[in-house]
Structures are given as structure tokens and as C-alpha cells.
């Protein structure tokens, strides 16, 4: 049990750091979420540099443009990259979820056409699964794909699509047969987001921001050659995407125990035993999250595959974030209501994250779904009763 690199790991870390240093400015301060054209351009440039340097998708086989490296090398790379001002956001979903699905189910033509351009950052991808009436129950989606000659005609609506506004392609889960039980009538496609009939509209969120999108499909034509997997096998394809998503969730984009400890110190709260004991609880949770990730990484480095255990990350962090923000606000008393970076302590970090936290408890699987996953897939407890199990989708009650 140690936190030191092996000689091989240390060598890789040095190589990574040298590459980063040569190509990126160091991070000054944790800033807000960057957006906009300018940022996108920088992100694409960095992805290209990274790919050319052999650091994009380290664990992928060399045959598809990866490094053929170890999971621990990927971890080391991520650690090192995160201390630089690396603009990586726009590629996470594409390279983390969509392209692995294309690699798993796409034809040789797909792989040749899409993987390299995604890898060097020329094309950005998004994931089109969720719908207004199909959130936790993703397989309850209604977007229809109807066969018409060599094409499929798509009509329907997706929602909560991250990055749709700047994406070139998406993987799109559709219903091709409503007359069979819901999981059996789904089919996955690659869709060109610039095609006529695809309309992206930003969602106005409860937090006030507009980071996510709705995507409307009106008579969009997709050639059958852009299907991923068999007709009716879309759920099987989607599970590969979702398994990769699980690796991505977790992590708390907001204040944690160290921020609120800093704040408490400034506010003279460190003599308050009630505050001290809450702080202890938060520290332990934060460590629990961080150290559990180390355990997972250790397992990955031994060749274990990531399992449903990874659902733990978001359960731990999302609720803690909401709790810390709430406390950070209440400790400021009436003043805590002020949501203005210029006026509120610590650039209003507690207030802005307070409005984000409820979304984090839902995105990528609600608390309730994640606990079900742990109960069923880790502890082996029975599934919920599925009243819709053998019922044709179009015969199903849906409220």
C-alpha cells in the first residue's frame, strides 16, 4: 500500500508533464465553466496536439489511434492534465461514451470515417438518449425511426443533450418497433447534427443557465448504413454507452469541505463546536469519495473492469454539495442570500453551486436509480417489479 509511482509510472508521469508544460499554460485558478467559440477553438487545438503527442485516449489500442497504455497511465495523465489549463470539456462525451460505442458496434467504414477525426478533435460528438418522458426509464423513449427505402426517417425529441449546440455527430437511440416490449424495439444510429430537420434549442435551467439542450428531429433522414448494431438491438448498444458513462459521473463541481473550512475560518466559526463537527463529517465524506476512487484505480490498474460500484461517486458528492452550499449560505445569515460574485464571500461559490446541486442529484442517474443499481448489481437484491416487462410498448401505460 503506497502512493508512490512505480518506476514505469514515474517515467510516464515525467513524460506527460514535460509534454503538458511544453504545450499548455499552468492553471492559475479554478475558474467558471468556459464557453463560446473562442474556447471551442482552443479546445480543438489542444485535442489535436494531445492526439499527435500520443496522449489522447491512452488506454485505447494503437490500432484505433490510442496509446495502448494502461489504465493507471490514463489516471496519471488525467492528474497531470488537471493541473494545467487544459480545455477538455467538449470531448468528454464523444471520446468517453460515443466513440467507444462506435468502436464496439460500428462497421469498419464507421471506424475509419469517425474515430480519427474525433480523436484529433476535428469533430465533436453528443449522446441523444434522454427524452422528456424517458428519464430514469431511458428505454421508455418515443423518438421514432421508420424505415423508408435505404433510409430511416426520424421524428421526435431528445432532451438534456450536453454539447448538442457545437456537436457534429451524435449517437441517437430510437424506437423502430413499438409493437414489442420496450427494450426490444430500439435501434441506435449515428446522426449528423448538421442535417436538415435537426434543431437544437438550449434549455433554460432552474439555475438560470442554459448549458443543456433539447434536440428536435423532424423528418430527419439517416441512411441505414449509419445504423449501429442490429435493428431492435439498440438497448444492447446503449448499455455499452451507459457503462462508459458510469465511469464519468461523480466528482463535485463546487465547494467541498476545504472551501467551507476556509470560509469558516474567515468567519471566525472555528470556535463553534457544531461547525467543527459538521466539518469533520464533510471531510470524511470527501475523503471517502477521493480514496474510494484510488481503490478503484488500483483495481483498474490490475485489469479489473469497472463495475456498478462506481455509482457510489455521485451519491456521495451530489448530496454533500447541496448540504455544504446550504450551510455556507445559512452561516452567512441573511447576507447569504446575495448571489453576486462581487459581493458574496468566495465569489458566491456557495450560492451558484446551490442552484446547480439539485441538477447534479439528477443528471447521469438520480440518487434513487443509483441506489437501485448498487442494491441490485452489487448486493444482488431482487429487481423492482417490472409491470411493463412483457407488454408491447404501444400498449403500455405512461400516465
Amino acid at each position, binding site marked *: 500500500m503506497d502512493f508512490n509511482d512505480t518506476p514505469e509510472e514515474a517515467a510516464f508521469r515525467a513524460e506527460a508533464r514535460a509534454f503538458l508544460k511544453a504545450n499548455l499554460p499552468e492553471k492559475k485558478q479554478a475558474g467558471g465553466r468556459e464557453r463560446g467559440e473562442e474556447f471551442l477553438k482552443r479546445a480543438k487545438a489542444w485535442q489535436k496536439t494531445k492526439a499527435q503527442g500520443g496522449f489522447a485516449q491512452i488506454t485505447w489500442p494503437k490500432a484505433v489511434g490510442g496509446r495502448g497504455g494502461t489504465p493507471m497511465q490514463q489516471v496519471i495523465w488525467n492528474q497531470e492534465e488537471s493541473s494545467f489549463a487544459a480545455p477538455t470539456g467538449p470531448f468528454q462525451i464523444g471520446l468517453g461514451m460515443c466513440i467507444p460505442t462506435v468502436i464496439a458496434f460500428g462497421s469498419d467504414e464507421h471506424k475509419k470515417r469517425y474515430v480519427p477525426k474525433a480523436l484529433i478533435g476535428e469533430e465533436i460528438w453528443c449522446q441523444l438518449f434522454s427524452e422528456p418522458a424517458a428519464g430514469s426509464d431511458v428505454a421508455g423513449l418515443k423518438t421514432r425511426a421508420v424505415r423508408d427505402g435505404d433510409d430511416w426517417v426520424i421524428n421526435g425529441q431528445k432532451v438534456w443533450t450536453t454539447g448538442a449546440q457545437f456537436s457534429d455527430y451524435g449517437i441517437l437511440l430510437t424506437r423502430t418497433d413499438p409493437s414489442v416490449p420496450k427494450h426490444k424495439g430500439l435501434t441506435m444510429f449515428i446522426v449528423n447534427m448538421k442535417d436538415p430537420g435537426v434543431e437544437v434549442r438550449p434549455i433554460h435551467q432552474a*439555475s438560470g443557465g442554459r448549458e443543456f439542450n433539447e434536440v428536435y428531429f423532424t423528418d430527419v433522414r439517416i441512411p441505414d448504413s449509419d445504423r449501429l448494431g442490429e435493428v431492435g438491438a439498440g438497448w444492447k448498444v446503449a448499455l455499452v454507452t451507459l457503462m462508459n458513462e458510469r465511469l464519468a459521473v461523480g466528482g463535485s463541481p463546487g465547494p467541498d469541505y476545504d472551501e467551507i473550512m476556509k470560509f469558516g475560518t474567515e468567519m471566525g466559526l472555528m470556535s463553534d463546536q457544531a461547525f467543527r463537527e459538521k466539518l469533520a463529517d464533510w471531510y470524511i465524506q470527501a475523503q471517502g469519495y477521493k480514496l474510494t476512487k484510488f481503490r478503484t484505480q488500483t483495481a483498474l490498474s490490475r485489469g479489473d473492469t469497472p463495475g456498478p460500484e462506481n455509482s457510489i461517486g455521485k451519491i456521495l458528492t451530489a448530496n454533500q454539495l447541496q448540504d455544504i452550499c446550504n450551510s455556507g449560505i445559512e452561516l452567512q445569515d441573511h447576507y447569504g442570500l*446575495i448571489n453576486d460574485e462581487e459581493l458574496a464571500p468566495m465569489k458566491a461559490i456557495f450560492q451558484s453551486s446551490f442552484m446547480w446541486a439539485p441538477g447534479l442529484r439528477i443528471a447521469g442517474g438520480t440518487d*434513487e436509480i443509483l441506489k437501485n443499481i448498487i442494491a441490485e448489481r452489487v448486493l444482488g437484491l431482487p429487481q423492482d417489479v417490472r409491470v411493463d416487462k412483457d407488454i408491447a410498448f404501444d400498449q403500455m401505460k405512461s400516465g
Partner: protein
Amino acid sequence: MNFDFSEDQKFLGDQARKYLSEQCTTAEVRKVLNDDGMACHESLWSGIAEMGWLGTAIPEEYGGLGLGMLELCVLAEEIGRALAPVPFSSTVYMLAEALKLGGSEAQKQALLPEIAAGKVIGAYASSEGPGAPDLSALKTTFDGNKLNGTKIPVLDGDIATHALVTAAENGGVSLVLVDLNQAGVKRTVVKTLDPTRSHAELEFTDVAGERIGEAGQAGPLIDKLMDRAAVLVAFEQTGGADRAVEMATDYAKSRYAFGRPIGGYQAIKHKLADGWVKNQVARSNAYYGAWALSTDADELPEAAAAARVAASEAFWFASKENIQTHGGMGFTWEVDCHLFYRRAKLLAVQVGSPKIWKEKLISALENKAAA
């Protein structure tokens, strides 16, 4: 024993609910939310004045209806339930009640009728920065004539006609009544988590004011004012919390996942049951506060504090789990969940955070045990 409101009081509440469900739909609340230039809902405010609610607990000789505090509690619950975007609490719980508690005859005659008529809007200005204001060390000062200092944030500070300002004087604290429409008062709107109720920073430079109560000795008056306001705000919170649980319950009955309403899954059922239980705890403690408030009982400090803390906890839980129950929909601007989440936070800090009130509660219990 009769631990409930009377039929008349309930009738008043029913009427208020009916009125607000028509005049104060969430669409109306959103007008204030979406329009930065709109500090409150003026026509609703006029309507409320016309209904006589502002003078509910103001004696008839000062132009009020001369009803009691229980009637005001009933109305507070409905105001809270409707998320009414009007300066009701600042004007009624703070300004009118301060005048009733400590105002001179002249002050009462001057202002209470105006309040009842909806012509005066109050504000309570105490906070001077992050953390609960320390009344024994305020930076804002009063010298008997002139007030100087800065208060931030002041609820309804940008639309109030009069403010109650806490200020240092003679080494103690005074409660100073200030007409805000005078030179030397600078108001700056402040952005908060709940834009349906406006807040401002108020800067006072040699501003004229007059005390409510004695110079430098307003501490006990302020404590009592806060205890009374705490009960009334607890009713607003209880109203809001009830509606948030109802909203989540309704949604859980109609939203399907995996072929069943999500309200049929125990994770959701028990979450909503928990919310209902918390709301009952809040309501029962609020009723006790109402009894203590209406009878001016010795138990008011602990009753008010318990009501305040229970109601803050209930509304917080209800509003955040209402979003959670709604899933992704609950995180959109268009669905009303966030209005409750925002208001819950406002009400939790507006007359002092639950932490302050827990401390007040235990102090009160210690005093009682020592007596």
C-alpha cells in the same frame, strides 16, 4: 383544550387561499422573477391592501381590522403557500408590529393607518455583512438625530417607504425609524437567490430618523419583535412546504417510469411521507408559536424558536425533494419547483438563520430550567 384555529379563522384562510390561487398564480409570481425592473407585484399588493389583510392585526383605532395575531398567522400561511411576491412580511410583521410593540402614540397614529391602507411599505434593515448582525457592535450609528451607515441586504429595501434600522447608540442598540424618501438615502438593488422578493443595499448619510423605544436600549424590543416575526414567517414556510409536498405528490402520481407511476416506488413514497411528517412537525410547532404569540405567553421565546427551526427544515426538505421527485423536469426554469427552492432559502435566513434560532431555543430552555 382546543389546539386549532377557530372556524372563523379557517374561513379567513380559505378565502385568502381562494383569492391568492386566482390572483397569485405562479405565472404572476414569475412576472416578478423574470423582470428585473419589477420589485414586487404591485396589483397584487393593491389587492391585498383592499382585502384589508395589511391591517388584520392593527387595532381599529389605527385604521385596522382589529383582529388578532391568530388571524395574521392564517394569512401568513397562505402568503407563503402562494409564494406571494409582495412586501407583506416587511410591512406587517416588522414595521407594523414594531410600532405596536414600541411605537409612541404619535408614531402609531402617523403610520399604522397608512400601513393598513397599503400606502406605506416597510423594511427591516439590520444585516451589515456576512453573518448574523451583532447588535452590540453595529457599524451603523445613530446620534439621536442622524443615522449613518450601510445595511445589506435589506428585504424590500428598494421599494420600502420606511425602514426600521438597527444602529449603535450610547454603547447599545437603538431601533430607528427612517423615512426612506429623503436625501442621504442611497438604494442599490442587490441580486439574490430569490428574485421574486427584492433586496437592496441601503446607505445612510446623515439621514434623519426617530427611535422606536429608548436610546441604546432596544435590545429586548428587537428580541420580542423577532420572536413574533419568527412565528409568522414559520407559517409562511409551513404553507410553502405543504404546497411543495403536494406538488411532488401530484407529479409522482402522474409521472410514469417502468410502466408505473413513480409514486408507486417506495423510494418516492417514503421520501414524500418523510416530507409530510416534517410538515406536521413544523405545523404543530407553528401552532404552538401562534398560541404563544396570540396570548403573549412566557413560552413565546422557545415556541417561536422551535416553530422557526422546524419550519425552515420542513420547507428546505420539501423544496429540494420536490425538484428531485420531478427529475430532469424539476431542473427546468419552466417548471415551478425552483420557485419553492428559492423561496425556502429566503425564508430560512430572512429573520435569522436556523442556527441562530437553535441557539435562542436552547437559551430559552436554559432560562426556563433556571427559573
